[in-house]
């Protein structure tokens, strides 16, 4: 018997912020959920419309639920946002390497920093939960354009209390400024031994340089155009590495070797194009 996809029945849907939605799916199979880790991703298939990658914002080994948080940016995500409870979604995966427990003694060597930008905050939520359960109390810095695009503020503040710092470009929520400003200040005033980040690649690139300067080990979740998700087609390649296999989370040593990080990604044809 060949089974190509797991089925997910939509249990719940809510608007999180401007153009951002979360859905909760109950899967028909334990296997897919068991293999979920923070930072891994699934392929979401809406028959006749599209199939695209998403890194879940939650998952539950007991309830077999999977939470997907996404920004509406194409036909696929638009259709996903229009689904109703009871509707079916097709899932394969999870794929790739997620965040891994760093090789340092996190309980001794100072604080851990988690930085998210925009919808990039979504896959960091299960990471922060995992860190808190270690138990750790990471600093979490989340940046958004405006207050109406802010994501998971309540969930994160429940997890880390006043270690959560929110920034917006226009100052409509939290600090006015960028996550980079706040992260820099934190690193100057506190001992930060390890950092995790996800968000727009320009932001990640600046953070990567800053972490390198300070000698702070880190892992970042990157995004590329994913077609096959099984390491065959090459559409998600960064330098010689396949995001779907060797990523989507890369550590500082790997990131420093990648010439395309922060500069180029590949279009559907495989041509290089600027990241920004």
């Amino acid at each position, binding site marked *: 018997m*060949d089974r*190509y*996809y797991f*089925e997910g029945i939509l249990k719940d849907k809510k608007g999180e912020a401007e153009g951002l939605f979360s859905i909760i799916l109950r899967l028909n199979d334990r296997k897919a959920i068991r293999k979920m880790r923070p930072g891994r991703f699934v*392929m979401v*298939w809406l*028959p*006749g419309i*599209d*199939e*695209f990658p998403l890194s879940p914002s939650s998952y539950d080994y007991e309830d077999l639920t999977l939470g997907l948080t996404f920004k509406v940016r194409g036909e696929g995500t638009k259709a996903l946002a229009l689904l109703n409870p009871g509707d*079916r979604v*097709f899932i394969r995966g999870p794929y790739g390497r997620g965040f891994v427990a760093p090789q340092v003694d996190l309980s001794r060597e100072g604080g851990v920093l988690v930085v998210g930008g925009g919808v990039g905050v979504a896959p960091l939520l299960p990471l922060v939960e995992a860190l808190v359960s270690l138990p750790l109390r990471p600093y979490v810095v989340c940046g958004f354009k405006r207050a109406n695009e802010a994501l998971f503020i309540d969930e994160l503040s429940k997890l880390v209390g006043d270690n959560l710092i929110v920034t917006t470009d226009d100052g409509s929520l939290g600090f006015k400024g960028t996550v980079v400003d706040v992260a820099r200040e934190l690193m100057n005033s506190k001992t930060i031994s390890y950092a995790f980040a996800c968000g727009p690649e320009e932001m990640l690139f600046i953070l990567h340089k800053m972490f390198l300067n300070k000698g702070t080990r880190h892992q970042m979740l990157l995004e590329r155009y994913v*077609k*096959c*998700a*099984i*390491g*065959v*087609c*090459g*559409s998600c*390649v960064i*330098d*010689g590495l396949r995001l779907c296999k060797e990523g989507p989370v890369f550590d500082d040593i790997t990131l420093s070797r990648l010439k395309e990080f922060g500069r180029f990604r*590949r*279009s*559907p*044809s*495989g*041509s*290089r194009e600027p990241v920004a």
Partner: protein
Amino acid sequence: MSLEVTLASLKLRHPIMLASGVLGTTPSMLVGAYRAGASAVVTKSLTVNPREGNPNPVVVELRFGLLNAIGLANPGVENYLAECLENQKAMTKIPVIFSIAGTKVEDYVKAAWLISEKGLAKALELNLSCPHVDETRQFSEDPRLTAQVVKAVSAVTSLPVFVKLGLTTNLMEVAEAAVKHGASAITAINTIRAMAIDIRAKRPVLSSIYGGLSGPAIKPIALRVVYELYEEFDVPLIGVGGISRWEDVVEFLMAGATAVQVGTAVYRYGLKVFKDLVNGLKRYMEEEGFRDVKDLIGMAH
């Protein structure tokens, strides 16, 4: 013990190459495959203009193989060559075979010309048989078209021209046309047109409905084709289709292949598959007392 084989002017350290379509999307990955142990590497099929390929889903994982309908997505010959030139030092040291696809004879000619003049390629492989792009598939379904394209390409390049055929009922006629008009080797076979239906979604999985089946499921068919071709033709044959264990390599050599290409097994087992296959082949030759791998070629006839 000698594992060396020769395909036209191309000397290979052993018979096991990387097939087109897997990892060949970027030059850096080709270099990686060679370093991991492939004796030669074939690029993803390149077309004159960039192609986005088919919308997702484009692959289906099966128990005995892989179904794909990438749709010849590629950055186009010129973009690809530009990226190769950035890695020129590494690229010139390794046997790189450029795979070309097109929808018209002129496309193949133009691509062959552009590739040949850069001096990075050691051979060309004409993909005349992509099973999910109809305009390309037609070339290996009609011996006259095969003749035209092989003749036209051979006229503009001094590189060896390998011709990759698909599974067609007139395969022997097509091969004859290719050999007669200048093919230095025949690569057989391409993936086989196939499909999958998701019974819960109640529709074909692939956005393009049909795709190409590769992997162990097609191995006995590919082996049969190589055996038949060896009976009829004197050009070197490159066997491809579902090779994933060293025993498969030996079978293809004995059927008449001078070299083999590995694709789907790289996806399944990773790049280490090349070393595993080479080591298995060596062990077999020791056990059976072979000194030269060339002695195995066509042995089963």
